[in-house]
């Protein structure tokens, strides 16, 4: 306890000087406040790490990072606190689309630009932020479906969908994108759809139950890789071959998914890139330089399967 509290004033003093005299002068550090959702998954941690590395390693910036423990109220509190600390820009990964009007308006009134990361906010509030940097969950769902349509053709296909946490926007959109894309393909049928809470454990448990019930399953579509990893275990324990007997499609692109594709246990992972730090930094610099920015800066993403996935594996950092 002691050593900690001793070191704190030391680290706090430069930030204090920065935040008091930050306005405009180019030589001063730019103070960025980032309101992260939490650390609910490895994906999220990779995003956090990317942001910390990007700004932490750049002497021109100072990062104020806040972890909201998955709670919107905490994110709002964090933004309020950033406003009172007079930061130069705010980054926000909104935990949910709605409910940001008041606080973002306060930020706007205070003249602080806001950048959204990896998730958007509800329509009609475009004037409250500068840009949204991130991917399109609906598109990810569509991409997942597209791979299936491309590779499985017209064969009658029964699908198990492992949904994310009920109510989470990633779950809602990945479901919507996927279901819309196969709506008019009669051979694709989602036979079971259940939440796996984005976790391996639940993914496995749910899949176990379905395997007992039904022998006629061709595809597992999981809203994230973790649930797919769980499902793969369940399929193996049922004496079937994941990736062959039952095809595995998932989203996110974590390292384990690539490994699974390499091992032949999974088929495809749709990337959802968490490494948004550099793009955020660029956007802030551009904004400070007075450039006009796209409202939606898409993240660099891809769909990985087969050899492509195997080739990419060594470079995966999360």
């Amino acid at each position: 306890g002691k050593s900690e509290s001793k070191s704190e004033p030391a680290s706090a003093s430069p930030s204090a000087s920065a935040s008091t005299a930050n306005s405009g002068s180019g030589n001063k550090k730019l103070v960025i406040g980032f309101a992260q959702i939490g650390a609910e998954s490895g994906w999220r941690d990779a995003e956090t790490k990317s942001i910390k590395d990007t700004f932490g390693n750049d002497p021109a910036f100072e990062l104020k990072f806040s972890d909201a423990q998955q709670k919107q109220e905490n994110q709002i509190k964090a933004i309020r606190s950033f406003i009172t600390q007079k930061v130069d820009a705010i980054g926000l990964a909104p935990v949910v689309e709605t409910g940001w009007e008041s606080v973002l308006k306060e930020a706007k009134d205070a003249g602080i630009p806001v950048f959204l990361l990896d998730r958007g906010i509800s329509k009609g509030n475009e004037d409250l932020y500068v840009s949204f940097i991130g991917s399109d969950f609906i598109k990810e769902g569509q991409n997942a479906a597209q791979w299936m349509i491309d590779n499985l053709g017209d064969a009658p296909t029964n699908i198990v969908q492992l949904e994310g946490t009920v109510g989470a926007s990633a779950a809602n959109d990945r479901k919507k994108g996927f279901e819309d894309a196969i709506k008019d393909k009669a051979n694709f049928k989602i036979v079971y759809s259940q939440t796996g809470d984005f976790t391996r454990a639940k993914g496995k448990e749910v899949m176990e139950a379905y395997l007992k019930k039904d022998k006629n399953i061709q595809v597992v579509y999981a809203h994230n890789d973790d649930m797919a990893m769980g499902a793969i275990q369940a399929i193996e324990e049922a004496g079937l071959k994941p990736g062959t007997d039952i095809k595995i499609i998932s989203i996110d692109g974590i390292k384990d998914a690539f490994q699974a594709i390499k091992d032949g246990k999974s088929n495809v992972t749709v990337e959802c890139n968490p490494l948004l730090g550099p793009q955020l930094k660029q956007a802030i610099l551009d904004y400070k330089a007075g450039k006009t920015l796209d409202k939606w800066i898409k993240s660099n993403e891809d769909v990985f399967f087969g050899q492509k996935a195997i080739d990419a594996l060594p470079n995966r950092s999360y």
Partner: protein
Amino acid sequence: MGSLTASARKLARHKIVWPVVALLALMLLNLIVMPEFFSVEVRDGRLYGNLIDILKNATPLTIIAIGMTLVIAVEGIDISVGSVLAISGAMALFMLKDYPLWIVLLAALGTGLLCGLWNGMLVSVIGIQPMVATLILLTVGRGIAQLITNGQVLNTSDKAYSFIGKGQFLGLPFQIFIAAAVFLLVWLLKSKTAFGLFLEAAGGNKTASAYAGVRPRFILMTAYTITGVCAAIAGIVYSSNYASADANNAGLWLELDAILAVVIGGTSMRGGRFYLGGTVVGALFIQSLTTTIYAMGIAPESILLVKAIVVILVCLIQSDIFRGMLLPQRRKTVNP
């Protein structure tokens, strides 16, 4: 006839009856709606089926609920069990890379022991109220687990370690035997030593038990420590079953299920008498409900609703007053 109803009434007074009835009712429902639910076949020399899954997946919950029973018996509560599970799982997988299995297991169990001691100390020595004392570890514990895993999901392919969670023994999942062993140990502690008596006395009336020469603080400490160790065992089983340690999600909200299992099992949250057997049945009931929900294909949005209604029904069945209301005519015949 008279003696039959008399013995039925005597039976009804046993706390274990109602959780068993609830479990049977749930199974009956399954039997009617989906007979295939009960099919058990032999695959690769082991039993395979929903019932086996229920037993298997209920293991971590059962083990933790057994610990929780002890804490609740001394009028306490431990809401940090989920976090402790996460820490011990993370610890195990983190060490597995570099250390032999027995050290890994000892370290994981030791972590749980320390966590339990910490909770026990806060509650019995410093005197912080149990829910908040364990809330501290609930918060800190996740942080520590994430610190160990560096925020990533750790994986393992260690065969020996995987055996704990995935292995088969006598055709059954090995974890079932772990749960059974934990139950047996705690049961022995309860009924072959005076621990059970002291625990119930301290839970029933701390002052009076202190006056009788029992040391309630020591008993409290022990109860929390055992719970910590139970959570650690559950953490090992859990991480081994899923071959991964997920610091963020492992054991999330498990404390609520554990408390539910204890209460469904007939132990009162007000401390005192506790029923280990009831707790096990309660845990099995909760897992059966989950598996049933999956097997029935209930929509994800409705799961909570179903769970809420079932829990209330089960508790109502356990309430003498409610049963009395349902069977008013029976009362009259009982009394004269």
